[in-house]
């Protein structure tokens, strides 16, 4: 059999060509309700289960696109930092872990930063990439957060940070610990300049990340079901030798305990954050005169009072968007698909 599978089969395959026209995973199972979700529904719904509203993982690129108006933004280049400062090695070298993560994610480190508009308001979004070493925070992420903050100040924009991280990056030892105060120095710049600093807590936000910049926002928003806490559940259970409640450290639990302002479902994030920014930036109007004169900015300047308006707005932009890049097309599709699904249960939004 061996020669068949290792010799003949590849040979035939090379002649016939890879039969990969039919994707393997047409259907996916929701980890929460076990309902089956068709792949197209999965994409259209931004990886939110249409049966139970469970929010699944999305890529950081999708995440950042989802937050900005029409999915448009420009990437901010982040400075390089000294790599592997401790020459750290466990079972595997840290440099090799970095290499693997870079190959896997096609990104340099665990943070990406974009500048664009949300609800017409200028905003810098710094989003964590959980696929890159668990979104852990080392010097590169710290540097990225500082750059995001400096960009926000320079651009007179709000700062929105979206953590999705297991905490500090152990492989950088105490240097990663020092990114806790360092990131807070960054957000302090934004606060001192008088621009809003919003934290969108996504699954999971724990350890040194939750105990630093993620908990000092002007406003804390969380996605439903996200796990947010300082110590891991297992560590706590071992310490206190007790079983913890099922909803322990969930977004809803934090809402109940006064740690977040609101829990907002994924499809409402752009609208909700846009509305908040518009309210907060009211007195800052003088700061963005250039925004009003921008050809693109003018159509986006008006905040969207509700979802329906926003969709019409988006639809109205379709013709101009069609001419634009591929990315914009994708965004259009997303917004349209949302319109069709405006009645899905995934839109349950808890706010306080």
């Amino acid at each position, binding site marked *: 059999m061996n020669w068949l599978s290792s010799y003949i089969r590849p040979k035939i395959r090379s002649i016939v060509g890879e039969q990969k026209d039919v994707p393997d995973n047409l259907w996916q199972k929701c980890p929460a309700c076990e309902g089956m979700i068709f792949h197209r529904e999965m994409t259209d719904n931004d990886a939110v289960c249409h049966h139970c509203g469970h929010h699944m993982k999305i890529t950081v690129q999708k995440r950042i696109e989802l937050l900005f108006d029409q999915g448009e933004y420009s990437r901010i280049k982040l400075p390089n930092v000294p790599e592997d400062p401790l020459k750290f090695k466990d079972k595997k070298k840290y440099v090799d872990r970095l290499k693997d993560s870079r190959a896997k994610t096609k990104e340099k480190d665990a943070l990406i930063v974009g500048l664009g508009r949300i609800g017409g308001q200028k905003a810098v979004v710094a989003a964590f990439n959980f696929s890159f070493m668990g979104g852990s925070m080392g010097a590169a992420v710290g540097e990225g957060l500082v750059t995001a903050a400096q960009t926000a100040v320079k651009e007179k924009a709000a700062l929105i940070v979206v953590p999705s991280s297991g905490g500090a990056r152990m492989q950088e030892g105490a240097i990663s610990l020092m990114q806790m105060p360092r990131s807070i120095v960054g957000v302090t710049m934004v606060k001192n300049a008088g621009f809003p600093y919003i934290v969108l807590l996504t699954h999971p936000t724990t350890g040194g990340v939750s105990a630093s910049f993620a908990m000092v926002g002007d406003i804390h928003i969380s996605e439903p079901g996200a796990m947010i806490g300082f110590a891991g559940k297992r560590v*706590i259970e071992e*310490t206190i030798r007790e079983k913890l409640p099922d909803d322990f450290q969930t977004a809803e639990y934090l809402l109940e305990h006064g740690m977040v302002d609101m829990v907002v479902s994924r499809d409402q994030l752009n609208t909700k954050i846009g509305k908040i920014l518009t309210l907060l930036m009211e007195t800052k109007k003088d700061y963005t005169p250039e925004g009003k004169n921008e050809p693109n900015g003018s159509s986006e300047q008006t905040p969207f009072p509700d979802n329906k308006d926003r969709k019409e707005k988006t639809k109205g932009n379709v013709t101009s968007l069609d001419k634009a890049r591929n990315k914009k097309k994708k965004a259009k599709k997303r917004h349209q698909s949302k319109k069709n699904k405006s009645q899905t249960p995934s839109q349950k939004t808890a706010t306080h």
Partner: protein
Amino acid sequence: MLDFEKPILELESKIRELRNASSDDTLNIAEEISRMEIKAQRLIQHTYSKLTPAQKVKVARHKDRPHFHDYIKNMIEDFTPLAGDRLFGEDLALIGGLGRFNGQSVVVMGQEKGADTESRLKHNFGMARPEGYRKAQRLMKMAEQFKIPVITLVDTAGAYPGLGAEERGQSEAIAKSIEVSLNLKTPIVSAIIGEGGSGGAIAIATADRIIMLAHSIYSVISPEGCASILWRSADYAKDAAGALKLTAEDMLKNGLIDSIVKEPLGGAHRQKEKAIRRVQAKISDSLQELSSLSPDQLVEARHAKFLQMGRKAA
């Protein structure tokens, strides 16, 4: 007793025995004793001059190492402890209050691990809950209001991982403590006197000057925790202790602390007062250096200090 101290302690107990036995004090025995004493000194020097990171972890956690209250007793006059965060409760894991340091009014705070079972339980082994950090913030702000400096003495395995602590926002309490420290318009000097355990330490160690006792440690995670995550077994704690670069020397080399205070021969636990005097002298120098800066300059310099951490290779 630490394993690598065993030969030293055995030799010392032999010396004591000899002394007791030789009440008539013959010359031969006296010579023998002095020879052995020299040997013991050399042994201590030898052992302590080349402590491995894993051994330093043990010294840093030594039960006889001077703790917060030892420092207060020896270094602070008129110590007036102040209790409570005004929000929920009092946390005895993190003690703070007013006092006089070298004649000057200060706010002083730090984690107390406790010295025996009873006091360890009382102080929750130096692992603070949100209330502790919120009390710290309150006291720091008070120091700012009255324009007096803050001294923090750091000695904790970390913030307490418990149900109530999470419920009441352990993350927020630590984050806010760092923020308050960063923006405080009065000098802050921190000394890591034992264990600088991760978030629980940095919450009160975001300071203008950070001092470390030579055999204390400062780390993002305990070597045991790191080993069980990365090596999938706590048995590799020794390797993790080395890899994490948690010693005072490494911290200084990586530009994360400002100075190291040499410990008396054989570690701070062998000569508590001497160790405390040295820490006191270094804190005093640091406060002196900072006294010429205006409140705004202090904040600006503090921001700049933490902003560069991780930017330069060692």
